[in-house]
């Protein structure tokens, strides 16, 4: 369990993290989303005691990181996969963390096996691919078998097999009852991995909700209809109070009516339907709609096109 209470980090007058209050609960994967510069990394760094909050608090299991007696046994983190000494072997990288927390060589070898790096334990990470460094970073996070795991962009630079591996790993960590906080920019991946979402923008909380509820609340629900009699159906739908816009390949996109209502209306007027699909917005659409106002460097698409 991670608890943030009015967590704030200011550099001069600029608040990078501004009064964040939320809990990250055990047993589920919590996705941590926000545009670049939203304060995700700063928040994670404050949870880990690397940055000092200007005010407010971040605690892990009720204690500040600095007060954890054996920190790696309480929380493991991957913040930056590149943060390895290029000339320190993979095994030594883990050992210098393990020893400091009373963890032995055997466990270090075990986690190297767990992430699939057992064969390169004696090699220096200077020549590792980004994917291998990500795996080494995850091995370090799991070293103390911690109940709380923080992963900042763990799938960056991974191939599809690696992405799938992270997904399975994070899901199983949560299934074991651990608290998992995961940040990523890959929305499709987040949609597959996270149960719960915390979305921030400009350092402030935008949403703290379940994945499905988030998608439902943020995006319009539309119904796609195909019919040879599109013109008549469209006017009937409008008369019944729905909004209709043209979709791709002659389809109609209907808002304000459920799929069943559209079907009933068509049936009542003996209009043949070729397709009737409730259109579920993607997490990406929901996310973009919600964070649209808080993007730091928004590209003006409209201006660019015209």
């Amino acid at each position, binding site marked *: 369990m991670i608890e943030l209470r009015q967590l704030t980090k200011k550099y001069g007058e600029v608040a990078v993290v501004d009064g964040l209050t939320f809990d990250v609960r055990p047993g589920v994967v919590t996705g941590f989303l926000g545009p670049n510069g939203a304060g995700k990394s700063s928040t994670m*760094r404050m949870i*880990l*005691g*690397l*940055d*000092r909050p200007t005010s407010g608090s971040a605690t892990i299991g009720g204690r500040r*990181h*600095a007060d*954890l*007696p*054996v*920190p*790696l046994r309480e*929380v493991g*983190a991957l*913040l*930056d996969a*590149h*943060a*390895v*000494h*290029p*000339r*320190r*072997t993979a095994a*030594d990288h883990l*050992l*210098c*963390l*393990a*020893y*400091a*927390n*009373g963890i032995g060589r055997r466990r270090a070898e075990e986690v190297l096996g767990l992430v699939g790096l057992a064969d390169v334990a004696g090699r220096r990470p200077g020549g590792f691919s980004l994917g291998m460094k990500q795996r080494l970073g995850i091995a*370090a996070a799991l070293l103390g078998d911690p109940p709380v795991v923080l992963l900042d962009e763990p799938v960056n630079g991974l191939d599809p097999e690696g992405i799938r591996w992270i997904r399975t790993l994070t899901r199983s960590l949560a299934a074991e009852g651990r608290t998992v906080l995961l940040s990523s920019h890959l929305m499709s991946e987040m949609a597959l991995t996270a149960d719960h979402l915390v979305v921030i923008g400009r350092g402030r909380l935008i949403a703290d909700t379940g994945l499905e509820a988030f998608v439902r609340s943020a995006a319009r629900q539309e119904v796609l209809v195909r019919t040879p009699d599109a013109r008549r159906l469209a006017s009937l739908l409008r008369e019944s109070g729905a909004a209709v816009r043209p979709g791709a390949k002659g389809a109609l996109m209907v808002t304000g009516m459920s799929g069943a209502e559209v079907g009933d209306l068509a049936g009542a007027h003996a209009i043949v339907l070729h397709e009737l699909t409730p259109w579920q917005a993607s997490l990406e659409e929901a996310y973009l709609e919600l964070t649209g106002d808080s993007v730091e460097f928004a590209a003006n698409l409209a201006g660019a096109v015209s």
Partner: protein
Amino acid sequence: MTAYGVLRSEWVKFRSIRAMLGCLAGAVVAAGSYGYLFGMTAAREYLGGSAADRAAFDPTEPAFRALVLVAVLVSAVGVLAVTSEYASGTMPVSVTAVPGRGLLVGGKGAVVALTTLLIGPPLALLSFTLSQAALAAQGAPSVGPGYPGVPGALLGAGLFTGLVGLYGMAFGFLLRRSAGAISLGTFLLILPGMASLFPKPVARWIMTWWPSAAGSRIFAVHPGTDLLAPLAGAGVLAAAVAVLLCAAVAVFRRRDV
């Protein structure tokens, strides 16, 4: 989380920094070659000197001068123990494993101090041996390592290099960058070598009280009475290093990693 665990952890880090080997090899070369060159210079002075000069000649005087130059490399060892972590970006990882910043500095300090303490006497012995060999080869008086005061000076050299290692480490924490920390550390170490550029009272003050000059008194075999006594001199260096370490801990505690 034990002090012993942190010490082991820091040792694993220390031994995997390749530049350390370069520094230590450089220290051996510097101790040997400068020991020999200082011996040669002293021999020439002896041979070209008057009877009075010859009577006052002290063969141990050139024996340990090389250590002031060795100190530059020893200080770099201390710097690199810290700046290699900042350069590779592993400092945040280290701090999440050891959140007690004082404990982290302490563990690193213990590894740096022990290593540099242990290399001091062999380096001093190397410099001593080659300087005496140079004197003997030129026909000037020379002494052996058992000569009164020499064993003490050899041990004192360990104290000196140990303190200089910690001195470098403190600059590493304060400046976080290898280049800056090594440059500033080196400049302040060799400042007494430029004392003659200053007005006489200032020069005299530097030779007496400047930490690196005062610290080098520990390996003076015939200390004389015009400068600090060996242990007092070492005390001045130790006090300066203690102040730097306190500043390093204070800054490291306050700063975001």
